């Protein structure tokens, strides 16, 4: 569905993502795993044209995605929750969610049931929320907007474990309807528990790409990836 072909990207002249080729399938939950600073965030931003693309290409269902214009993937039903959570601080929670809704698309899970906060504080400006609360707004927004593909950076940051688990259950339910899901984590816990496929990065390159089931029985490859060598 989403094909990343020999992608090299970074900021200015710096290369952060180096020659990455990866195909993400519809209906699959993929975890992108790696230590701090290996290029996970930059890879996500590059998919949405939010950093400099030095080489390679991206296509969604065979149609290329241009660099530098995040509204193009967005119009094709792709969405990103950036690591800074990207809430609109002066808009209320309700307004934040309204901007994410897509005409003619209702996600299979009710985000307001998933995160009761979204109803309780509907009229509060999102800038007043705590980090974990902003993360809930961000995940809800991603579920609403991601008709085809959802990318979530640092999924569990600031979230209490019960909410992170609920969010991942919800994302699995969304993926079951044919949406591609890609989430970034720095720890092995959630990828091993919830991902169909685990992709590992070191120094801007992909060094691990195996099914989740395989790694669940033998997680040494994942732990090796995360140990500082």
């Amino acid at each position, binding site marked *: 569905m989403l094909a990343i072909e020999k992608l090299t990207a970074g900021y200015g002249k710096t290369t952060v993502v180096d020659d990455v080729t990866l195909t993400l399938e519809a209906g699959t939950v993929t975890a992108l795993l790696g230590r701090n600073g290996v290029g996970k965030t930059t890879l996500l931003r590059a998919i*949405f044209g*939010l950093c400099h693309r030095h080489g390679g290409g991206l296509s969604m269902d065979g149609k290329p995605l241009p660099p530098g*214009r*995040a*509204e193009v993937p*967005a*119009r094709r039903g792709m*969405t*990103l929750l*950036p690591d800074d959570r*990207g*809430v*609109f*601080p*002066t*808009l209320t929670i309700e*307004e934040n969610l*309204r*901007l*994410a809704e897509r005409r003619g698309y209702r996600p299979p899970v009710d985000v307001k049931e998933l995160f009761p906060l979204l109803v309780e504080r509907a009229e509060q*400006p999102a*800038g*007043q*929320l*705590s*980090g*974990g*609360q902003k993360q809930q707004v961000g995940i809800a*927004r991603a579920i609403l*907007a991601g008709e085809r593909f959802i990318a979530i950076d640092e999924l569990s940051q*600031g979230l209490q474990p019960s909410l992170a688990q609920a969010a991942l259950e919800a994302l699995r339910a969304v993926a079951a309807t044919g949406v591609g899901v890609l989430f970034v984590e720095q720890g092995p816990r959630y990828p091993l528990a919830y991902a169909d496929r685990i992709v590992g990065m070191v120094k801007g390159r992909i060094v691990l790409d195996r099914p989740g089931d395989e790694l669940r029985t033998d997680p040494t490859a994942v732990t090796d990836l995360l140990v500082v060598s």
Partner: protein
Amino acid sequence: MDAVVTLALSVFTLFGFYALLAVGMGLIFGQLGVVNVAHGELVMVGAFVMFALADVPFLPRLLLAVLIGLVLGVVIERLVLSNLYERGFLATLLAMWGVSIVLREGANAIFGSTPASVRAPIQENIEILGVSYPLYRLIIAVVALAIVAAVLLVTYRTKLGLVVRATVDNRDMASVLGIPPRLVVTGTFAVGAMLAVLAGALQSPLLGVTPMVGAAFLAPAFFAVLLGRAGSLPGAIFGAFVVALLSTVLRTYLNETLAQVVLFALLIVLVAVRPNGIDWRKVQWKPRTQPAQVAA
């Protein structure tokens, strides 16, 4: 009593004019972070459009001025500003200063510097609480304030306004949700510029229209936006009221020159004691910013 009524009417009509200027300038500043120092020249353009097309009936002529304002706004944003945002607000400020010179000298070349006059479509006076006052002035003040109210309604109560406010808050995230930021930015500038041209067109019968006439309107609009805390539209309109009130009262009791000096001295003091009004980097639309809560 008569003096009070006259003063109130003067404040009201000046407030309408300044509010229309301030809301356009506030939109441009809030959305683009651009200090539009050509705002006064856009007012001048509106006044000259009304003068140059004197044969066209008044209302269609206003409509033409609106169209010209929109086109001018799109052209300025696309040709001049669109490549300069990354260089910061000083670059865009200087560029707009250049635009103001081009507009002023352009008008000078076409129309010369002799004051031109535009005939008001309504010449009658109206009797209010024993004071006779030109009806046209009251009508344009009401029209101006209605337009300002409409701008606020669209900004805070419609989907379009939501899109604009989201783009101000976080441009990258807005584009990730499918909002084309370039279109929103160009559109906002065009509307802001159009409001200035429209203000000039409405005001034209009250002015001696010269290429220099715009310079006098930049400062009131600028201070109105500053007084109302940066980027806040309702604040800018409140600022316009303060500037209109001070300006009218001072002009009643002092001569023109002294009134100007005292007015701007007062405004500078006001801005100095309320420095929250000047915040070039972070732009807020709401008048109050609450500190973020500690992470739970």
